């Protein structure tokens, strides 16, 4: 009798864990817990409520390698350094690359290094926060990432330090074979510190299917201010699962803007825990989809303490056969009185074959709160098009102008001029 044994991707991932186990740095117990959680959860399929519109069992089908090799040189990636004047940490296929990075003259109070290095040199701080906020039992990909991540970035801003120049974390995928990459970041911003961080996901000379499972934990201590930006501009072959777990302490301000410009499948899990009083959180997002792309934004704002504000705005323009999903959840716990939480999702559907799924959720257990959410979906307003055409604009330029205006509500929240100009140029190019 002949038997055919086929290893499933799940088994393969678990096998990879066993294989690389000896070379891991950091806390083995955490990894062990994470792999156990992953064994239990597996990859999310269609039945998984949180992954209802993205069947990862199907999307991830294929054979993958875990290699990190590449042949990129600095001159090839000049255009990917979005900001002229910034501290840049470059990761190629998930591995920190010091040759491509620009981390020479870091100011006082700022540490940027690779995660293995951090585990060596800054053990106490790292161990205090690493994997403490992203719960391995809460999400399949957090579990997988915690179990397998071998590299990533550690950013530490010490007490009272105000970092003027932005920090740019640049992730580049460059491969000729199918890859699964797990990278992991930890950002700790201490009391009264201020920092701006830009994360961008790019590809260079990519000819294969690359799955990036990137997780970041961002800890914002009391009175700290963090501006966080994400630019996702990969190729249609790439799959990006991007988890951002934020923990905020009292009176801190965290703002994040997420731009999805290109990518085959993009899944963003943004979870913010408001763990103190008088916190402000701003979540904004813009996604422009075309062809067969699938973009799925999940956000969770967890109001645990009283007197906090959160404000969320996600906008999307959907074209061709692409699918865009927004699932925003606001969770207001019993003690979180005097919470103000607002959420809005607006979409424009340009094509007959596109799909928009939106699910703005409120779960509220406190009574003295003001929470609202709204969502609207439609085509471009014909009255507005008419108004512009009556003033001599052609139909296409009128529509372009309106889409630009629609997008600019999100783009205008970017506080780094250089980045905003870049995004505006990218978006304009899209509407050409």
């Amino acid at each position, binding site marked *: 009798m002949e038997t055919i044994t086929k290893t499933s991707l799940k088994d393969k991932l678990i096998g990879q864990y066993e294989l690389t186990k000896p070379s891991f740095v950091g806390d083995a117990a955490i990894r062990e817990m994470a792999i156990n959680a992953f064994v239990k959860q597996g990859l999310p399929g269609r039945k998984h409520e949180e992954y209802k519109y993205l069947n990862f069992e199907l999307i991830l089908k294929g054979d993958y390698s875990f290699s990190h090799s590449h042949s990129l040189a600095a001159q090839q990636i000049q255009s990917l350094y979005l900001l002229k004047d910034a501290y840049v940490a470059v990761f190629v296929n998930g591995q920190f690359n010091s040759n491509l990075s620009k981390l020479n003259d870091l100011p006082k109070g700022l540490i940027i290094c690779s995660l293995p290095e951090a585990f060596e040199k800054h053990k106490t701080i790292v161990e205090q926060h690493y994997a403490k906020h992203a719960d391995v039992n809460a999400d399949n990909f957090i579990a997988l990432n915690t179990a397998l991540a071998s590299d990533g970035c550690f950013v530490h801003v010490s007490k009272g330090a105000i970092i003027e120049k932005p920090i740019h974390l640049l992730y580049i995928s460059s491969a000729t074979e199918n890859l699964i990459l797990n990278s992991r970041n930890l950002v700790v911003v201490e009391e009264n510190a201020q920092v701006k961080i830009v994360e961008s996901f790019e590809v260079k000379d990519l000819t294969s299917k690359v799955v990036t499972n990137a997780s970041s934990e961002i800890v914002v201590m009391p009175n700290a201010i963090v501006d966080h930006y994400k630019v996702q501009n990969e190729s249609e072959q790439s799959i990006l699962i991007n988890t951002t777990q934020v923990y905020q302490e009292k009176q801190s301000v965290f703002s994040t803007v997420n731009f999805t410009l290109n990518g085959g499948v993009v899944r963003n899990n943004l979870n913010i825990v408001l763990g103190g009083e008088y916190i402000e959180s701003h979540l904004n997002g813009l996604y422009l989809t075309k062809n067969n792309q699938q973009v799925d934004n999940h956000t969770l704002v967890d109001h645990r303490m009283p007197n906090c504000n959160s404000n969320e705005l996600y906008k999307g323009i959907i074209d061709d056969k692409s699918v865009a999903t927004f699932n925003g959840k606001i969770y207001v716990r019993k003690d979180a009185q005097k919470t103000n939480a607002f959420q809005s999702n607006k979409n424009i559907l340009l094509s007959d074959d596109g799909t928009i799924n*939106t699910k703005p959720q409120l779960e509220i257990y406190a*009574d003295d709160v003001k929470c609202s959410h*709204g969502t609207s979906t439609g085509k471009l307003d014909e009255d507005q098009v008419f108004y512009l055409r009556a003033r001599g604009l052609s139909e296409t330029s009128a529509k372009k102008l309106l889409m630009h205006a629609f997008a600019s509500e999100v783009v205008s929240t970017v506080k780094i001029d250089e980045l905003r100009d870049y995004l505006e140029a990218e978006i304009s190019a899209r509407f050409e």
Partner: protein
Amino acid sequence: MGNEILEEHINSDYKYGFVTDIEADNAPKGLNEDIIRFISKKKNEPEWMLEYRLKAFAYWKTLEEPNWAHVSYTKPNFQDIIYYSAPKPKKELKSLDEVDPELLKTFEKLGISLEEQKRLSGVESKIAVDAVIDSVSVKTTFKETLSEKGIIFCSFSEAVQEHPDLVKKYMGTVVPHTDNFYAALNAAVFSDGSFCYIPKGVRCPMELSTYFRINASGTGQFERTLLIADEGSYVSYLEGCTAPMRDENQLHAAVVEIVAHKNAEVKYSTVQNWYPGDKDGKGGIFNFVTKRGICLEDNSKISWTQVETGSAVTWKYPSVILKGDNSIGEFYSVAVTNNYQQADTGTKMMHLGKNTRSTIISKGISAGFSNNSYRGLVRIAKGASNARNFSQCDSLLMGDKCGAHTFPYIEIKDKSAIVEHEATTSKIGEDQIFYCNQRGIDTEKAIGLIVNGYCKEVLNQLPMEFAVEAQKLLAVSLEGSVG
């Protein structure tokens, strides 16, 4: 001060808790093929009906009880339920005098006596009551008036006997037995319900109404309602219910199907005030209902209005499939939860035809330790051009131990669709109460006033007779729940 009033209310007993002693003809406890054959035989059903039941039962056995809703409760033991209980058959009744006096007393206590209804019949507002006690329809009034117009309004089992073609044609077309766990169970064991057929071009001259009542102890009630509005007809259907006090949980898994043909309009209103359990969350009705209507042909309209104040656990999503072009679906809901009540309710609007429109207005009010969720789906299928949806779901919280949740699902596959969803959560403002106090309205009344104002959009949709009842119900349900 708020606490005193709250406590007073919490300690008040369920007003409608009493048991009528009518000799019931019970089936043995449990669920198996024999029980289903027993029910079918008892009701003298034709073979095709039994087959349908068995088919549904076979399918049900393959299913697992769903647990995605935002509620938690002890799952009913399906083998510990009596699936059939009927008052002993009496001779055909012609006047109210012949109705069991016990039964009449029950209705009197509920304040909806048949006598009053009959007296009303001489006046303008006419309500035909198909009184349902336990699972069998006992008395149908106004049948003659209705039959003059060609309207069929009778119990479901009667319809199976007398109008098998219609039942066979429509039953299970809107809610198939494969739809969900409870729909499958209902299809297998349904005891009785109402059947209504409005012929072509007829505007039903009166509001049709069914009063449900769960009676004998340990009886599950599995109602099945089928409502068909033929071309160009109009009907307004009311459904209201109260149930006696019980310690053990009772299961109610009803199915309502509505079919609207070309140019037809159906308005379905519900006031639900089943026993919600006592202040510790003990007892109360499990209300797991599948309600769905289909706008089968062009220009049809289905409108759901519900006021939900009772039941320990409610699971209910009255839906509309907008298949015909230019069809309209509406959903107006007020859901009140107090003490340990849990409600997960909302609607589904499936836009398939062109130029279809739907409106969703949902008002949730939670007090005590209760949880109140809105869960809704708006789906615009590809090709459903110019579909339009507007949804608004507001929640009002009273007290800091309750929860209000919104889970709207919106799926759009057509670019010409315009879909809007809005939701807010808030509490009654102290300034609002202060304003009323200042004008000599005490806090209790002020809350009633504010809540009624908050729900006005929905209450306005109810027929007159119900609107009054509903307003009272809201006031009673929320007495003193000052946050």
